[in-house]
């Protein structure tokens, strides 16, 4: 049992590492691959839950999530990059050392006294919960710090993965029906956001959101 909880915590560390590398990565395709790896890790958590509860419906939803987030979404993103020949479109407002400093501060902040009482939800998984909160904050920072529309989009999906992992360690997974509803919402979001990214590239000739300056007061 201890072995399993250690393994699951290790998976949470992988999720944490992927979001850190998303910040450091300069290649758009690397960010997509990191997202696929992060989604795979989240799927493993969900699979563990489905197997532990011997719940077939939950297993089916997990397979759907795997298909959507690990295969279909990254495939669409990579296709989009290839179509628009976007190799190095990743740029950020802060440079790498400053970004690392902010990441460190965010991680320390979540382990400070303020967030610690959150562990009351699931005391056995206290560290994993705090790490999930750190991933949430770092994902939000990814959305803010990146200039590329695709990176912003992946930041949101990473935020969603972080919340799913938080729910897993807090024992707050929903019924398969609700999980299906949420997954359907996310899939629709991915499709719509991908269409928008294409539209942005078509209209502005770039995915850099700083080139969008048509909304003036």
């Amino acid at each position, binding site marked *: 049992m201890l072995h399993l909880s250690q393994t699951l915590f290790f998976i949470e560390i992988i999720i944490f590492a992927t979001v850190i590398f998303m910040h450091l990565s300069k290649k758009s395709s690397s960010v997509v691959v990191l997202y696929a790896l992060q989604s795979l890790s989240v799927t493993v958590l969900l699979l563990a839950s489905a197997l532990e509860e011997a719940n077939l419906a939950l297993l089916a939803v997990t397979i759907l999530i795997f298909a959507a987030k690990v295969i279909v979404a990254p495939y669409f993103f990579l296709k989009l990059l290839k179509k628009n020949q976007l190799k190095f479109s990743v740029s950020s407002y802060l440079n790498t050392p400053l970004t690392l400093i902010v990441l460190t501060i965010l991680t320390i902040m979540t382990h400070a006294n303020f967030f610690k*009482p*959150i562990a*009351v*939800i699931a005391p056995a998984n206290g560290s994993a919960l705090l790490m999930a909160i750190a991933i*949430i904050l770092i994902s*939000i920072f990814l*959305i803010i710090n990146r200039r590329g*529309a695709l990176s*912003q*989009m992946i930041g*949101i999906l990473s*935020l*969603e993965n972080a*919340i799913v992992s*938080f*729910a897993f360690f*807090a*024992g*707050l997974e*929903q*019924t398969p029906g*609700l999980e299906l*509803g*949420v997954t*359907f*919402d996310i899939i*629709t*979001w991915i499709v*719509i*956001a991908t269409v*928008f990214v294409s*539209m*942005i590239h078509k*209209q*502005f000739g770039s995915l850099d*959101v700083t080139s*969008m300056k*048509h*909304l003036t*007061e």
Partner: protein
Amino acid sequence: MALLLIILSPLLASFIFFFIRKSVGVFGLLSLAASLVELGSALYVASGGKVSSFTSYFSVDALGMILMLIVATIGLMVSWYSISYLNEEKRKEIIGFRRIKQYFILLHLFLAAMFIAIISANPIVMWIAIEATTLSTAFLISFYNKPSAIEAAWKYLIINSVGLLLAFLGTLLFLYPVLGHAGLVNWQTLLGNAASLDPFVAKIAFIFILIGYGTKVGLVPMHTWLPDAHSKAPVPISSLLSGVLLNVAFFAVLRFKAVVDLAIGPYFTGRLLIFFGIISIALAAFIIFGQRNYKRLLAYSSIEHMGLMSLGFGFGGAGAFGALLHMIYHSLTKSLLFLSSGNIFLRYSSTKIEKVRGVLTALPATGIIFFIGFLSITGVPPFGIFLSEFYILSGGIMSHPFLTGLALLALAIVFIGFLKHVTSMLFGKPEEGIEIGKEASGRLAPLLVIVILLAILGFYIPGPLKSLINSAISIY
């Protein structure tokens, strides 16, 4: 059964729209028919006055019924207005058949999502529905496919998605006291288990909810998407976004507020709502004063009014009663203003205030209606907003005299700002080339209905509606 009809009617309409190949007129007729069914069903459910349920997934209480009536009424007016508005845009070759089809499909999906959000018994289902409102409206905001519209839609999509994910996290945190609960968790279960919520978790969860759904409400400082999205969308959609959707998101905040208030008392949520309310009113007041675009002016006015409602619910008591009344009056008035601004836009082809002169000459009926809307939105008596603002401010005058005074000052600035802009638009001589007179009845009739509704509700609140408001206040 009536609840099922409310959801199925817009969904079915959207589905049928897919298969319409040629006739534009069918869109309008079917859209109108679906909206009439929705309003009829909403009136039927509300006339019962009691909590109405359909399966364990859907249930509607007094506040939900009020909102359902708002969505159905404004939805009908928008469907009606859209027919003539889109025909005119088609005549001007701004849009074609494909766009009209896309518009009606998304409009009814949007309405369906709002109805589901209101009548869902489960907080996660409500979240899914509110997220669906974002997804269904994103393409409506980018409808004209211009760079500014795409930019506004992207901003809307990204900011609201982050907000709603935070709201999702907050929602999950609310669910931990009911872990292991057999069956679907509904609002009653959450209220019943509120005492088991850890005070720290309750506070953190509500902060996530307020920031998350507050983004959708347009509370400052999470409001940045709102003026852009509301000013770039087609006018009928702007009227739904401003007049209805913001209330639906506010409804989500109120549902969680009720749970937190039971867990730790109303002080914490009240303080937060007052804080976000006052900064929203203050910022919007100054921006309204210096605004140069009339659609953005109306959008910032929505931020101000959401701030007022937040203030009212934060004050509680008479303030909360006023805030609920305000929800009704603001929805009607803001829809009226946006729809009449649509007539102005079609005539002047500009949303810049400086380009619009002599509306009373060019569009006499629309000009008068726009002026009525201005008087109502700025809280001039005898319009209902005067009454609701009076209740809101009287709710806080004893406990928060300074903030109440500040809000009053901001309202005065809003009045002066609006007066300045509206007089410059309505009076004077229209520029050469602007057609004088001749207004389409299809774009005036829905406005007249809203004016009549506003006039009636300003003087008299029907008994059943009053009892719904009183029931809602006892919970929220």
